[in-house]
């Protein structure tokens, strides 16, 4: 592993130069594969991945869990948001090999047609999406966000950061959901959907 990292680092450094003949040819041929076990949606999944494989690509390309979307691959859009040990993360910014033994929850585990999670049902009812490509990320993010607020975590929009009680105003919801871009701009409807659930509305 260390040898591989050293080789990779040299590759990265040298690709900016015109001449890369100083890469040791043998190193590049080392298979960079790793056997890992991921606990996804309550199920253990064994897979062999390239160590460079992101958690996002492991889900989409190796495990067929394509509900998690790739929008930018750089942590700038939030379409790939999943829950790892209950916390929301951008699955494009983390490698699959880093998540041995973590509990990973994706959109597929929250609900299914006919048995929707309250947030999924609220998104449908409030029309909190159009093209649907950011939707999985918005919903997973909202699940994580509601837990953060319930745990009393303050945000930039919190008036009193010393209080353990967060009043989940629209401004709080907007601030806390701002890592999830929606280019269809369904924002007012997304906030409405989250508000319904936050207020313990219809499930």
């Amino acid at each position, binding site marked *: 592993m260390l040898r591989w990292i050293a080789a990779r680092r040299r590759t990265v450094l040298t690709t900016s130069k015109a001449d890369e003949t100083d890469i040791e040819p043998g190193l590049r041929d080392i298979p960079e594969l790793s056997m890992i076990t991921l606990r996804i949606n309550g199920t253990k999944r064994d897979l062999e991945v390239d160590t460079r494989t992101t958690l996002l690509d492991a889900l989409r390309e190796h495990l067929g869990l394509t509900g998690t979307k790739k929008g*930018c691959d750089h942590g700038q859009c939030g379409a790939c948001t999943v829950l790892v040990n209950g916390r929301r993360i951008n699955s494009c910014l983390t490698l699959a090999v880093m998540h041995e033994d973590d509990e990973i929850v994706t959109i*597929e585990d929250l609900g299914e047609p006919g048995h929707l999670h309250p947030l999924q049902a609220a998104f449908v009812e409030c029309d909190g999406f159009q093209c649907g490509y950011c939707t999985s990320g918005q919903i997973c993010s909202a699940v994580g966000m509601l837990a953060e607020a319930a745990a009393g975590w303050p945000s930039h929009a919190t008036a009193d950061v010393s209080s353990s009680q967060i009043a989940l105003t629209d401004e709080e919801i907007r601030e806390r959901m701002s890592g999830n871009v929606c280019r269809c701009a369904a924002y007012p409807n997304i906030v409405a959907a989250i508000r319904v659930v936050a207020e313990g509305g219809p499930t």
Partner: protein
Amino acid sequence: MIGQALNRVDGPLKVTGGATYAYEFRDGDQPLYGFVVGATIGRGRITGIDTTRVESSPGVHLVLTHQNAPAQGARDLSVPFEYWRAYPTLSSPDVHHHGEPVALVVAATFEQARTAANLVDVEYAAEQGSYDFAACQDQAYAPESLIFGIPADTAVGDVDAGLRTAEVQVDEWYTTPYEFSQPMEPPACLVVPDGDDLVVYTSCQIVDAARASIAATLELDPERVHVVTQYVGGGFGSKLRIHGETILAAMAARALQRPVKVALTRQQMFSSVSVRPTSSQRVRLGAERDGRLVAIAHEVTMHTNRHVEFIEPTATATRSLYAAPNRLTSTRLVPLDVLRGEDVRAPGEAPGLLVVESAVDELAHALGMDPVELRIRNEPTVDPERGVPYSDRHLVECLRDGADRFGWERRLPEPARRRDGRWLVGYGVAAAIRVHLQGPTKAAVRLGPDGIAVVESDMTDIGTGTYTILTQVAAEGLGLPPDRVRVELGRSEFPPSVGSGGSWGAGNSSTAVHHACTALREKLLAAASSDVRSPLHGLDTAGAVFSGGSVSIDGASEALGEIVTRNCPEGLEAEGETVLLTEEPNYGAYAIHTYGAHFAEVGVDADTAEIRLRRMLGVFSVGRVLNAKTARSQLIGGMIWGVSQALAEEGVVDMRSGGFVNRDLAQYLVPVHADIPEIDAVMLDGFDDKANVLGVKGLGELGICGAGAAVANAVFNATGVRVRDFPITIEKVLPGLPLTEV
């Protein structure tokens, strides 16, 4: 059923991650992964490509370059619409813009392809390119005509004379930046070879155009190309045509006889797809003291890529918006070596109304007149340039209703007068107008013996709600509950359509489905009334009522499924269609548009000039609404695009290479949740009987039309600072802010 706020029928799939987008299909063998390599110069020639190191990189199956790419069909200008034309890729060593694909690396895994793509050594002979729009204005030329043969320039009366005699004049220059569609789903495809055929899962707005373009480029019989586009993660114009990713994947899949998939990275979406051209616009308005316009001139200059001419119809909305006896519009193009322009949401109206509706606000200020009232005073009775009546114009109602709902009377006419703590608060208004178009679209409706109707068309749902509205139209057309209708879209073997774009998708496809249902009802009635086993046998079908899955005549009734079971157990089918607007007399005899009025309230920080939208309302006239929920969502989405256009979006060109420097979502700014407050959209009741039999017009683009101007005008009202170089950003407002009392 039509008009109801039915939840999206594809909603449960989309919220559970079950909707399958192009890159996510699995078909046949494990696919190979392609990664695109883009040119690092803006103009010049490739003098050499060394692929030896790539080819020895782990997992690499193929490196496509211009040296080994197959011969391709040329872009044929006799094909009437660009999106159906060939898209040659890697067809020559010439570089036409920065980021143009110069190679495709295909490997067993995405990681291998991406790493190997870094090892392609390309040598260029770079030439000096033209990248600076402002510096190249002297090279502007007049294009022959706009899309549909619409004239590039128009003139009525004598604008110069009108301006000379006008008591109040506005004469200002504005600029709008390069803007990108940037849908959340990057352009992506999976191509699966099947003998001589290609199955192409691609993210596109027009399936028929994708098929034609792939076939023309690869010189294939279009019947050999099967396009599947079930769900599209947004398009906003950028997926009207397929681009290099699809052509490259198709070439690689054919060469390797393996499934190949390619997606562009977010960064590549700023260099190898398309861009809304940047513009320079001069607006001259002349009015009498009572506000009546005597002259309107809107002169537009935009960039085009030197090799592929694209003309955004930016002055056309001005031709129909306000009355004035003396008028002039013009369109000029400046050829640059910058990425080619293509349609971005509301092509023409978006940059044009942003500017013209700002200028009208400037006129209102110069006149000391309420900008709502100024607009109402210039309401035309007929289309002022074509001389034909409007089909269904309700702009004044939109303005009055919106002003009332918004509380417009609380606006202070004098700028920079309203304070709310540290915020300077302003109100702005702007009008919206968007041309309504119709194009050729077919749909089939088949009723099975189970009483379920299946609608088929190659039409797409790009988030617009097509699955849902066609469910409603078919349910109403056949008297079925919506859960007895299934809509299947986005396959090239289905009846062809002109897809989603130009706000014509809803009107075209719903009209086609309506006609198909009408024809299917006739077939059902003919079958039942001539069948001795039917309770409807021999009855006069003129009074037939279709409801609840049955048809009734004078108290006798039979389930539709039974009629089908007895007469054609394989199902009974009928087709409906729409034709191109040039073949539809109403589109010549009337000016057919949608309308709206935007009202915005902004706060501008008195010390820092930070601009925040506080609330916004749009009131729209769109004919008949097919689905109150999805229509409202689209309008709100469009309005937010307008906000973004006014305050955020701007592609910045690197003058050394012609590439865009801010090529990701951290640097090309689009609104996030925290930027968008409460926004509402209201639709007036309506029915445009000149548009089509359903009275329906499209609205996917109307929301953006003029929305940015309402925000810009609110910034002026808040601060007294008029920014004419969009977007309106802090550094442009700050120097003009009124001094704050300490």
